[in-house]
């Protein structure tokens, strides 16, 4: 059993109960034992002063790609979990587009075992909606949930068949899990590599129109209304999607949505010069979309931030724009990008950001965490919101370096990450890897 730990004198922000005060947090036996001013620690407690820092529930990312099994050269559950805790995340949800696809209980169990073996961030598997993600036959949701899956998704590709999406939403209700959809009309998006707009016209690249996403957002909201199922919309990128979600939520439809740090901060202009690190799906859109996404995150139409962490080997991105794969890594920059642009940029307060990166995602995926209430697992992050740093991909714990934020000056990072009370990342001292 690890020693009790007292985090002393920090600004404690717990959005799960609207708490934001200078206080101490006592962790014993892997759980939150007490939160309050001037706590007295039992004998043998490690006392750590965190004055001037922020103590918050560990960040939760409901959308990452960890590439294991199949592409362990790009990422593994262990390396992804290491990157996660370095970024302040105590829980991440791994998408099933692995090789082979995570579409059965044995495959789900493998991810869980790899996560336990790594002993860092909690890695929750997401199972596939359809066998092989082929969009034909439903995967065995019940068995996958039994093995530890927390949601189902065919992410990487959309659920093209409306009938399959309908049955998935209905069938998932029994198990109380969301169906997470990558919203993209495949015929409209076919061959597209960036946002359809003036930049694409100039670069001579095939565009993906905003309507390709919005058609599926509209469809998914209608089907969630029809079935009473919970649809979770991945990586929203357009202002039109925001309006469709707003309307659906007003009608009481069970829809939740996520947005990535890059869609909140970059536009299609990042593709100028054919920079393949700006190639992702959905593509970076226009300034008006960024503004609408920020406003939607503020007012709760979009529930949470997710990184869509998508590692790719350096030589895969070292190619002509058409030939490079979609996606960027994000676990180690997500908090700092969001904090720099949204909190320091005056869009969100720090408690609001922590709610959108911890409490809300934990709530919508029914995960433990996202809270510092007494008795909860001690999944805690100590953040230094004032720490300036520059993004140097060579220092990433992820196996991959594909980020559009290289060289960017950011403010705020995770100093200490505790998972079940155990130090999983200590940015102040020596990094603690798996014991």
């Amino acid at each position, binding site marked *: 059993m690890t020693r009790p730990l007292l985090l002393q004198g920090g600004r404690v922000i717990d959005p799960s109960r609207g708490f934001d005060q200078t206080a101490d947090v006592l962790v014993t036996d892997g759980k939150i034992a007490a939160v309050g001013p001037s706590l007295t620690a039992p004998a043998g407690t490690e006392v750590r002063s965190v004055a001037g820092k922020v103590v918050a529930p560990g960040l939760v990312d409901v959308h990452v790609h960890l590439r294991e099994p199949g592409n362990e050269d790009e990422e593994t559950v262990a390396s992804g979990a290491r990157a996660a805790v370095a970024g302040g995340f105590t829980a991440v949800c791994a998408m099933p587009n692995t090789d082979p696809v995570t579409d059965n209980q044995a495959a789900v169990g493998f991810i869980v075992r790899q996560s336990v073996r790594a002993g860092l961030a909690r890695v929750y598997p997401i199972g596939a909606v359809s066998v092989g993600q082929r969009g034909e036959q439903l995967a065995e949701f019940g068995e996958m949930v039994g093995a530890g899956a927390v949601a189902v998704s065919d992410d990487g590709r959309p659920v093209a068949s409306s009938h399959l999406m309908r049955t998935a939403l209905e069938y998932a209700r029994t198990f109380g899990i969301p169906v997470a959809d990558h919203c993209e009309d495949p015929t409209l998006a076919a061959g597209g590599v960036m946002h359809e707009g003036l930049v694409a016209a100039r*670069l001579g690249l095939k565009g993906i129109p905003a309507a390709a996403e919005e058609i599926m957002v509209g469809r998914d909201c209608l089907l969630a209304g029809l079935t009473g199922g919970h649809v979770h919309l991945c990586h929203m990128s357009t202002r039109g999607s925001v309006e469709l979600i707003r309307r659906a939520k007003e009608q009481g439809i069970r829809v939740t949505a996520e947005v990535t740090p890059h869609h909140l901060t970059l536009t299609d202009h990042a593709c100028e010069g054919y920079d393949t690190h700006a190639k992702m799906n959905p593509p970076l859109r226009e300034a008006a979309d960024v503004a609408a996404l920020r406003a939607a995150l503020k007012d709760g139409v979009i529930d949470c931030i997710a990184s869509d962490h998508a590692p790719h080997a350096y030589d895969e991105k070292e*190619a002509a724009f058409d030939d490079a794969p979609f996606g960027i890594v994000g676990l180690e920059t997500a908090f700092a990008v969001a904090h720099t642009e949204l909190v320091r940029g005056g869009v969100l307060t720090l408690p609001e950001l922590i709610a959108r990166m911890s409490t809300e995602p934990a709530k919508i995926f029914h995960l433990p965490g996202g809270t510092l209430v007494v008795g909860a697992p001690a999944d805690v992050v100590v953040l230094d919101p004032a720490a300036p740093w520059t993004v140097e991909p060579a220092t990433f714990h992820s196996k991959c370096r594909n980020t559009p934020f290289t060289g960017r000056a950011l403010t705020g990072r995770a100093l200490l990450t505790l998972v079940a009370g155990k130090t999983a990342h200590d940015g102040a001292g020596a990094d603690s890897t798996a014991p």
Partner: protein
Amino acid sequence: MTISLGKDLIGLEHMTPEQIRLILDTAEPFKEVSERPIKKVPALRGKTIVNLFFEASTRTRISFEFAEKRLSADTVNVAATGSSVSKGETLVDTARNLEAMRIDMVVIRHGSSGAAGFLGQRIRSNVINAGDGKHEHPTQALLDLLTIRDKHGKIEGLKVCLVGDVLHSRVARSNIWGLTKLGAHVGVCGPHTLMPRGIEELGVTFFPRIEEAIEWADVLNVLRLQLERMEKGFIPSLREYYRVWGVTPERLERSPRPITIMHPGPMNRGVEIDSRVADGPHSVILDQVTNGVAVRMAVLYLLAGGRPELADAAKRGGAE
């Protein structure tokens, strides 16, 4: 004051009007070389040039090869089929291997937009874009500009309309940049399905109907319509395309003035252009081909470090 082109010729979008004029002016003395019985000058003697064509090309590749040979360069042609490219080699590996053979210049055609610039950033040799995806085809636009200037004595103030598949056309993009930089008014005409969204924000006028374009224009540059566009559903049939957008003598007759007819080739006679127009008195289509060699000689000469004022002398062997 000397104007330089820099290391590579990737596109006209980021070039200055002075740089474009420099190429056109330098092409003038090179025109005469191709009229000689012995069509060879020593300007690029000892230089090695690789023509790297990842896409099929007849006219452009031959035009570059003639330009290189008439400047006395040593040339090697690499086609995608039957080379390491068809064995799965990546573009960056192809580039590094060429570089390792200590070549001086690469002329590249590639199906991906941005491929020429990608290569240029990774090798020390000069890179000339002979067409990259739907991005640019700068030497084609330069030879179009030279042909327009020959025919009309100027470019500034002329109304030039690009007709057809602008969406998929690198020729159209390079022409739009080159023409607007030299002060021409640019129009585009064709079905909405073959126009990039936001095209008018590039400073061009859109004509949905060919009749309106003909009424407006001094020059029509008729783009090739690829059969594939019909298969992909952008237009219903070639027959209907000809009926609605084909450039025919009957339509041209209604113009208040004679219209110069251009086409980058290869033509689909009876689809985008009627044979009587292509072979008619106002067609400069073969002049474009002739000028192509001179323009490419000028580009090769300038990128190799040749001084523009010595282009005349270079023809006699005095520049190197």
